[in-house]
């Protein structure tokens, strides 16, 4: 049982929770995720860790309401409890001094990007964040990501804020302007696919953080398997980050629909 300390709506469908989890707050690193379950009939779902405060013993989770389980979590209030929370899971992000790093994120992908941008910045990189959203109201955590970035370029589909266009348009603009040594991308699978195609054509090494279907999150079930470089890998234990240019995003997009008709 993990207590919710604070709750805040970042947009109509996106909730930020500060959750008591002292052991995870201490041991987590950028790139790690947790599995949560709400209620005795609840499903186990993976959520990335957006931040942690070891002194307060809390972690920050950002959740977008998309299905039954995420709605259940978002319906919890301060002082209420998440039934089960386990982590930190997955491999931590590989951080090194690459030079110039583009952090390309979309939607709630900005949340797990926060600790990665922070770690990249700390490692001495020039961090350029390209943050994409459909419209102005859906741009989240802008202030927070700015704190870890040398530059933030925001794109919206409708042009209501920042540059009009997609995340790839933003990256393209940067690539035309200067040399980029590394790219990290987190967001919807379809977005990561196109980021990957773009950076591949520019030969910029890129990792993508994948969010697949999982049950246990510790390697036991294999629901999360993806094909990377022609080999089957488990996102939960081998990932969640992989060389984006090797990921079979088309297969991943299909596999995300495995239980769609049952929801």
């Amino acid at each position: 049982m993990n207590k919710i300390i604070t709750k805040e709506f970042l947009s109509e469908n996106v909730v930020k929770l500060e959750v008591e989890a002292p052991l995870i707050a201490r041991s987590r690193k950028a790139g790690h995720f947790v599995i949560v379950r709400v209620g005795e009939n609840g499903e186990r779902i993976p959520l990335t860790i957006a931040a942690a405060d070891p002194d307060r013993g809390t972690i920050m989770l950002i959740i977008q309401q998309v299905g039954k389980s995420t709605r259940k979590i978002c319906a919890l209030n301060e002082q209420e409890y998440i039934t089960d929370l386990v982590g930190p899971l997955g491999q931590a992000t590989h951080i090194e001094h690459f030079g110039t790093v583009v952090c390309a994120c979309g939607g709630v992908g900005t949340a797990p990007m926060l600790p990665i941008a922070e770690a990249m910045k700390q490692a001495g990189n020039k961090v350029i964040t390209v943050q994409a959203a459909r419209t102005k109201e859906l741009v989240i955590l802008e202030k927070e990501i700015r704190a870890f970035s040398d530059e933030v370029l925001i794109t919206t589909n409708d042009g209501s804020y920042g540059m009009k266009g997609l995340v790839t348009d933003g990256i393209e603009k940067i690539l035309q302007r200067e040399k980029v040594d590394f790219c990290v991308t987190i967001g919807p699978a379809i977005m990561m696919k196109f980021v990957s195609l773009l950076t591949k054509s520019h030969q910029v090494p890129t990792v993508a953080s994948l969010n697949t279907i999982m049950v246990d999150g510790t390697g036991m079930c294999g629901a999360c398997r993806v094909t990377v470089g022609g080999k089957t890998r488990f996102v939960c234990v081998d990932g969640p980050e992989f060389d984006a240019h090797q990921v079979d995003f088309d297969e991943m997009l299909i596999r995300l629909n495995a239980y769609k008709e049952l929801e």
Partner: protein
Amino acid sequence: MTTTEHIKALRSEPWREQLRQKMTNKERVAIPRVRMPELSPDFRSHSYEEVNLGLTAEQSMREAQRCLDCPNPTCMGGCPVEINIPTFIKNIERGDFTEAAKTLKETSALPAVCGRVCPQEKQCESQCIHLKMGKEAVAIGYLERFAADYERESGNISIPQTAAANGIKIAVVGSGPAGLSFAGDMAKLGYEVTVYEALHEIGGVLKYGIPEFRLPNRIVDVEIAILQKMGVQFVTNCIVGKTISYDDLHASGFKGIFIASGAGLPNFMNIPGENLIGVLSSNEYLTRVNLMAAASPNSDTPVLKGKKVAIIGGGNTAMDSVRTARRLGADKAIIVYRRSEEEMPARIEEIKHAKEEGIIFMTLHNPIKYIGDENGRVVQMLLQKMELGEPDASGRRRPVEISGATELIDIDMAIVSIGVSPNPLIPKTFHGLNVSKWGTIIVDPDSLKSDLPDIYAGGDIVRGGATVILAMGDGRKAAQAMHRQLKVSGLPLIPNS
């Protein structure tokens, strides 16, 4: 008193002597072996209720009479946790079922579980004297289940006695059969035991793996509750190696650690189409249905309900999966196995039950490809026909492809049940452990001690893939060895602690 002397002393008690006099061995041997009452195949193939109903008191007392109470009980040598088999059986014969249950609990932390899922025909019963006389073995497993069930249902469950607390803290990684067995034995010896479990439920494979129709979760819960009453602490949602480290355990004052983290990762065949929707591991399928109760309308966890389901493999997990698929509405639930039925590792009882429930057996077939539709869902599988060749390293005849002989069958789900690989988490995060090329932890075979002075390991993380009872036997062995090292020799496990 040594164990042998103890067994002899119990056998010499007056009531036992009298009981032996009551019938001649000839009369005892003449009694036919009891048949386990079962739900009818038609009913149970659509129900999640337990298939085996258990013996009645009369049936059990009659079966107990078959046991000759041998002076040298060879059956005990076949039991990895060394249950005093004749003593518990003779207690059943005289009608003292509670005492029988107590005898079981002296050495087994999970008698109601073992009475259901142990392959007794390969363990204790394989050593029964009756077999040497060309008769069927005494139904030790059925009797074990009866005694444990009787005690539980009586509402008057005895808690095994524990030695005075010695204040020494011991950590267990994993709450499956090996971890529970170890925890029970260490608690009896007076240690302060904490079991860490990664999942939200205690019980490991007993909960996520073995289905309700073979082992109801409530039975497991009762046995766990007994361990709790003996003082064992359980911490769920905690992954040793991730949430807390080896160093954290030292800092918390743990003097010995038993690793029983199990076999983690499901194996796949790496054939084309294996990542199509509808192709999944038996671990995923069984976890959804057993741990997450996905078949219940109240559960938030979904599960695919195929009509034509192929299960790849011939082990107990394959049988559990195929029988689950049948219960979830499969018209065709098919076992696809590359050898013949004779080589199947599954228990004979499971194969028999599966057949009665209408499971189709396609032996000497091996999948080589899955074919999907435009939405990426599996719709067909291509099977290679096989024949048996010369024996291989396992002693079983090697399956050999029949050149050009293939068959395409329609399926809407395939469950891959060809074994698991050890969970790499502990070997990766506990530096200094000696790990085999298969990823199992290498331990001394007698003490189950690893290369790290305070770490012992057992169950599937050492064996790769075995049975509940072998895992429990490991737990027991490791507890005895760790106790000897900690108390008897007086040596701390960590030189500088």
